[in-house]
């Protein structure tokens, strides 16, 4: 599976990339927090943030086309829920406010993901004394997510090759079996990983 579209630019070498992960994380959270709290009338603020983010993107050599493409991909989900806001007095203002705020926040988070490798974010979490169990789970999740997705795709493809029943029920049953198998294989892989951890001295 091609997954590098998520953080394709996270390993470039620009001043912004070289900045400490903790600083970038705090900065992103601050921008999101302020944007969420800002009243709709603070137009100047929103414009300033937009310009700032676009400038940061340019500085980090992340193509605007990529940002636009990511936003285009993510906006439909936002629109779906935002649509509901229209059904109330003054809904149009709320809708506009939401669209502006969520777009700015999305832009911020896409920038964060593309200037900070996930492993660095994990390191920051560890420094912030986030419980080790959660951080280890996050690390393993990140590491094995695409391994499992590839495995599921291969299994599904192999099953489809020998499925001659085109009905939806058959597709659902196939997917259910593939996911079930994926879980069984994941537990077995977890055992092997545990052995590998032990073999290198983990306690």
């Amino acid at each position, binding site marked *: 599976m091609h*997954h*590098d579209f998520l953080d394709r630019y996270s*390993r470039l070498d620009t001043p912004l990339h070289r900045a400490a992960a903790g600083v970038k994380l705090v900065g992103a959270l601050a921008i999101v927090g302020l944007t969420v709290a800002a009243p709709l009338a603070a137009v100047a603020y929103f414009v300033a943030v937009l310009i700032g983010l676009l400038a940061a993107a340019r500085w980090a050599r992340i193509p605007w086309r990529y940002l636009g493409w990511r936003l285009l991909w993510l906006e439909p989900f936002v629109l779906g829920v935002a649509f509901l806001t229209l059904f109330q007095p003054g809904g149009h203002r709320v809708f506009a406010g939401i669209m502006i705020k969520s777009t700015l926040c999305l832009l911020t988070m896409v920038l964060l993901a593309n200037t900070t*490798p*996930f*492993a660095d974010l*994990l390191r920051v979490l560890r420094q912030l004394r986030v419980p080790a169990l959660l951080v280890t789970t996050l*690390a*393993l999740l*990140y*590491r*094995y997510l*695409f*391994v499992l997705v590839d495995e599921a795709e291969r299994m599904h493809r192999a099953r489809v090759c020998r499925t001659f029943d085109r009905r939806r029920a058959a597709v659902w049953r196939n997917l259910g079996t593939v996911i079930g198998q994926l879980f069984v294989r994941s537990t077995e*892989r977890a055992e*092997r*990983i545990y*052995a*590998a*951890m*032990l*073999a*290198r*001295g*983990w*306690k």
Partner: protein
Amino acid sequence: MTTAIEVRNLSYRYPDGREALRDVSFTVAEGECVGLIGPNGAGKSTLLLHLNGILPDGPAPVRIFGETGLAARRRAVGLLFQDPDDQLFCPTILEDVAFGPDQLGLGREVVREALAQVGLTGFESRSPHHLSHGEKRRVCLAGVLACRPRVLALDEPTSDLDPRGRRELKSFLRELPVTKLIATHDLEMVVELCGRTILLDRGQIIRDGPTLELLNDEELMMAHGLERPHILRHWHPH
């Protein structure tokens, strides 16, 4: 000559009751390179997992350089797993290779050295899922070497490698002075690297002897799901 590995009367049953190893006994001297061959399901991988105590000992404990303690054995044995994805479990290459050394308090210099040894300097911040199969193998090797083991136990190290990958790994292993026990189907590698070979089938040691003698015995090889490697068909011992 110091005994690096000593296994005596080792038997093991899988949790579901199947017999995996039956009364296995052998020794490996320091610096020796021993090949462990046998058909699929013979118990080669299971045997390797006993060396550093991941699987429990039988009536007589496994001794690595005379030590029976788990901590000492784990320190001394570097185990390379068959599937690099099982062994490469950290988000970045650097963290993964440093996993062992960090716990042993060895510092980051050994990590850099290990990466240089396998030719992967500069890969420190890469993520494992961006690497090719051969590169992942090399990272696993680096992670094991960084712990400075005295014994290297390898499980199918050349499987899924392209010919160049195999050549590089073979020449790398040839240069490495540590004691080696290599479980493999790559019989040509066994001929090239291992002076001695152990043939395992259905959990039992069938034969333990000089590689050429063992691998040239066509009847024996065929009887145990293997074959005489082509490289030996024109071999002239000198």
